[in-house]
């Protein structure tokens, strides 16, 4: 497990905010660790929803529902708001991102393609 998630990038992201002035040297390290813990929590809780739905692939809808289930994730509401709630619209979203996907071919995503095709046939 990566102990420090890209400290340099974290610092860059922090300083992209104009309100932020100087940052002590150790700060990106703390943020990195906090981020790691946060991401683990987010993944764990989203996956619980994935399991509950009997799905094998964790998708955006699970993530959206996870965010809606915990107050501590309220700050993510805008980020997930564009995820459609209906299954049929998910297919449309897949179409849009399909063009991107074909450029970068990754083996593990093929399974996901099959699933979404199945979903389209069913609905």
């Amino acid at each position, binding site marked *: 497990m990566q102990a420090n998630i890209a400290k340099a990038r974290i610092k860059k992201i922090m300083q992209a*905010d104009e309100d932020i002035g100087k940052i002590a040297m150790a700060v990106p*390290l703390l943020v990195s660790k*906090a981020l790691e813990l946060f991401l683990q929590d*987010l993944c764990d809780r989203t996956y619980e929803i994935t399991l509950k739905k009997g799905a*094998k*692939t964790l998708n955006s809808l699970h993530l959206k529902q996870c965010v809606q289930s915990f107050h501590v994730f309220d700050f993510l509401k805008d*980020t997930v708001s564009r995820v459609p709630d209906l299954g049929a619209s998910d297919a449309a979203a897949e179409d849009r991102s399909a063009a991107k996907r074909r450029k970068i071919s990754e083996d593990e995503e093929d399974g996901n393609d099959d699933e979404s095709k199945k979903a389209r046939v069913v609905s």
Partner: protein
Amino acid sequence: MEPMDIVGKTKEDASLPKATMTKIIKEMLPPDVRVARDAQDLLIECCVEFINLISSESNEVCNREDKKTIAPEHVLKALEGLGFGEYIEEVYAAYEQHKLETVDTVRTGKLSNVAEMTEEQALAEQQRMFAEARARMNGGITVPKQSDPEPQGPQPSLNT
């Protein structure tokens, strides 16, 4: 502070490395779990949002304390305030570990400086301090603090 408010600055430039993040996310989940591509991207966006959130809150804590530089303590307080208090212990532990790993070089530097004082010099220094103490006693001035190396007031000159 919404990312969209920053005009003229491409926040997309300051994003987390996708390949690294994808790997980390996969490691965080059970091995047989697949993650949809758009969910991957969304998770990374959530990470960036988290960083923004912590940054803003830390900055506010910093300002409230009238400090100019965001310090580790500000980050810890920010986590508490945002409802991530349970992270504080581990984050602080990581910070302590980091301090140990970086201070060592500084400490070694200081120790080697002390070691550079030769035995002769150390002995001379010791003699000097004893002499000063003796002089104070002999001068008839009862100074209760004998351990104080600093001369107090006028001292009789030493002819050693």
